[in-house]
């Protein structure tokens, strides 16, 4: 080989791929303040293997992977290759050791082209006089080898999510990584895209790469991996060969008990129409999606589930109804009255409650105490203020009631919201919105980030509200949740609501999520 190795040379590098190796984390611990994210975690990975790390949100999966990649530093424990302890103090160290990570939120710069993103920080291309065309040719050849189709000259911001993920994988390969860590790689993909990803990963594994997949989705772990480790509350519960364990056994390990039987949904005849959208449109804004001709009806006592891959207009739908986005055409009708483009305050006052998708950002003020957060939406009702002066006494009573009824764990009503766990913050939002006795409840991803017990609780609350005659718009990317709770299901794709055939199954919903017209040029 010449004085400078070619990329294919590194990637195929016969020595490298022929030799077996073993990469491992040994007794790694990490805590953030009082929260123990990793407690003596040990996981290992062999050449040519796909190892799934399975666990619920908050089980500590992402933390251990970030430690392997040097983005977090462990409090104790170490990382090793073939029993040689590695010092990984930064991603630069990890990259030098042949480790690469595909983050859940892609580490790409939207304004730069694919090529620029690929060579960012890459020392091999760091010279001032680097011939960009030669580099591009090398990378194109590498992409072809793994059948990863991507246009190197397009800005990353213009790529679809699936394409961006392929850029991330290609980035790892360009750096000659042998270990790939994928953090929740399927969260943003359609079922069909997930299949394509699986094929790419299998191909990489056959080429003696080692792959960690971090996921909270059981079926994908079963489908994609050779071995699977389960994490719960910062610890590794166990590691098994995937073909020697069943799904139900894994669930037991994940949650520490069997899943609760799915919520029972009493038979109800829906009442009168509460919400009606007539050809509602929202124009696209910088960085935000659009809605096109939405027609949707929700009756009292009915749960309408909106399925779809994240970012297909679900958030815009919720915001348009709640008065947070301008409706450019069409009508939003609440109980017979048009509320199109009313100020958000009036829509809320008319009986709409909204559990926003991003609770941290929209639903609470992290530096306010619980009391101030409890009255966030209703601070102008006479219950909490007279002539513009806030009634502290009423606020305190109300907050205490929410804490009591919803069993919010906190150090007191004056504790800053920031000091609560994510689940308890969520409980406060839910408690606050339900206490408003709404006619319409918009719940966006109401169980994201919760543990199984809390999910069950939220589900039962939604069913209870349904029985009380509330119209509920449930927006979720968790198909299981949609199917379990909804009276009717619609799918959103590219800003449109797609009708579904009767008796939808996971497969038919999945097909609707992807759309039949344009299947993306997949990685396989």
């Amino acid at each position, binding site marked *: 080989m010449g004085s400078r190795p070619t990329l294919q040379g590194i990637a195929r590098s016969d020595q490298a791929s022929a030799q077996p190796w073993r990469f491992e984390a040994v007794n790694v611990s990490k805590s953030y303040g009082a929260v123990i994210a990793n407690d003596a975690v040990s996981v290992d990975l062999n050449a040519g293997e796909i190892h799934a790390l399975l666990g619920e949100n908050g089980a500590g999966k992402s933390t251990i992977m970030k430690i392997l990649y040097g983005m977090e530093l462990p409090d104790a424990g170490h990382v090793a290759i073939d029993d040689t302890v590695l010092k990984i103090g930064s991603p630069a160290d990890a990259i030098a050791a042949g480790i690469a990570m595909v983050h859940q939120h892609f580490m790409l710069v939207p304004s730069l082209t694919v090529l620029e993103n690929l060579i960012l920080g890459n020392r091999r291309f760091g010279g001032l006089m680097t011939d960009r065309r030669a580099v591009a040719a090398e990378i194109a050849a590498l992409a072809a080898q793994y059948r990863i189709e991507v246009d190197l000259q397009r800005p990353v911001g213009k790529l679809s999510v699936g394409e961006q993920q392929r850029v991330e994988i290609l980035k790892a390969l360009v750096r000659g990584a042998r270990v790939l860590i994928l953090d929740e790689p399927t969260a943003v993909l359609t079922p069909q895209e997930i299949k394509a990803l699986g094929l790419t990963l299998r191909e990489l594994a056959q080429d003696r790469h080692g792959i960690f997949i971090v996921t909270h989705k059981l079926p994908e772990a079963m489908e994609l991996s050779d071995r699977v480790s389960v994490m719960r509350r910062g610890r590794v519960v166990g590691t098994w060969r995937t073909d020697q364990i069943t799904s139900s056994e894994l669930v037991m390990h994940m949650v520490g008990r069997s899943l609760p039987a799915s919520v029972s949904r009493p038979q109800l005849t829906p009442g009168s129409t509460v919400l009606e959208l007539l050809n509602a449109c929202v124009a696209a804004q910088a960085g935000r999606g659009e809605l096109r001709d939405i027609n949707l009806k929700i009756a009292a006592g009915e749960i309408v589930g909106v399925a779809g891959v994240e970012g297909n207009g679900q958030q815009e739908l919720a915001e348009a109804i709640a*008065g947070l986005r301008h409706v450019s055409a069409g009508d939003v009708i609440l109980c017979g009255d048009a509320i199109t483009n009313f100020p*958000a305050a009036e829509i809320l006052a008319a009986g709409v409650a909204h559990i926003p998708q991003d609770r941290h950002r929209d*639903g*609470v*003020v*992290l530096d306010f105490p619980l009391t101030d957060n409890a009255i966030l939406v209703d601070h102008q009702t006479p219950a909490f203020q007279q002539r513009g*002066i806030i009634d502290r006494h009423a606020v305190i009573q109300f907050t205490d009631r929410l804490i009591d009824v919803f069993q919010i764990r906190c150090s007191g009503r004056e504790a800053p919201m*920031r000091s609560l766990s994510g689940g308890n913050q969520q409980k406060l939002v839910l408690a606050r919105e339900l206490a408003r006795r709404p006619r319409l409840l918009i719940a966006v991803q109401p169980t994201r980030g919760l543990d199984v017990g809390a999910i069950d609780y939220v589900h039962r609350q939604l069913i209870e509200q349904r029985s009380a005659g509330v119209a509920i718009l449930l927006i979720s990317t968790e198909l299981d949740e949609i199917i379990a709770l909804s009276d009717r299901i619609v799918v959103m794709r590219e800003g449109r609501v797609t009708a579904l055939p009767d008796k939808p199954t996971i497969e038919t919903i999945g097909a609707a999520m992807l759309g039949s017209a344009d299947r993306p040029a997949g990685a396989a």
Partner: protein
Amino acid sequence: MSVHVDSAVTERWRPFAQGTGLVLASMALTGLVLLPIGINPIGAYAQILKGAFGSVNALTEDLVYATPIILTSLSVIIAFRCGLWNLGSDGQLYLGAIATVGLGFNRFGMLPPVLLPVMAVAAFAAGAAWAAVPAVLRLRFGASEVIVTIMMNFLAVTIATYLVGGPWASGITPATAPIVSAGFLPILVPGTRLNANFLVAIAAAALLSFVLRRTVFGYQLRTIGQNIDAARYAGMPVNKIRFVSFSCAGGLAGLAGFGEVAGIYHNLPNGLSPGFGYTGIVVALLARLNPLWAVIVAFALAALSVGSGGMQRAMGIPVSLVSILEAVLILLVLATRLLERRA
């Protein structure tokens, strides 16, 4: 930690201990600039203390100097609490002063009991109007209020200098002609310059504190400052509140200008403000945006400034030593991340 100490007591006193430590450290650091010019920093600081607290007159001068600083710091605070930077209180102060002088000539022949309140209201309105410009540009067009308010400061000084040198010139001094005596603010302590605007400043601080803590308007303002997305989600009239609070910020600074003219100079001199607006920023930051603490911090910094005048007269050390000291203190606060405010 060999001795068990009641942790509640140590918790309570920790901010004071930290604060004292920071002040001493910044004094030591600032003292370094005195060494090359052959001056003993301790002597200089002693002169400042003497100048600030050495006599009854010095004490009242501290309060006189604190008055506009309290108002400009409140101006910074009310804007900052809803997430906006008001670096323009210096310019708003000038506009308040210009309005005060303009009416103070009393060309409309207002009766004495009417004249003073009208001047005050006009000063507030002029400051508010001057602040409304950056507010509108920010809220409507997304223009950085940091840059616009600074530019407005330069414009305000330009206009004031023009008036002093041109239309309103007195002829002899670099100041406008005097206002009528009916427009003078009452003096609180005879024989000093301490005037009624000091009480206005204290009242404004108390009022702002109440509004922020106990009213719906204050609650909405704080929510916007902490998390504007949550405020929108909760249906708050975000732009309206930001506009009102930014205008009020200008009005408070305008009142500072009113006090300087009606209470102290009785005309509009060139260089009316020795940077009260910027000192107001320092006060707001050190007071952690709390209006009541701002009164105390403003008094401390006013004393520092008054004392430094004495130091300059006695030892020939430039008064700009004080701005160095103030800035070093805040930089130390930022570096050590003490006094960080939450909520």
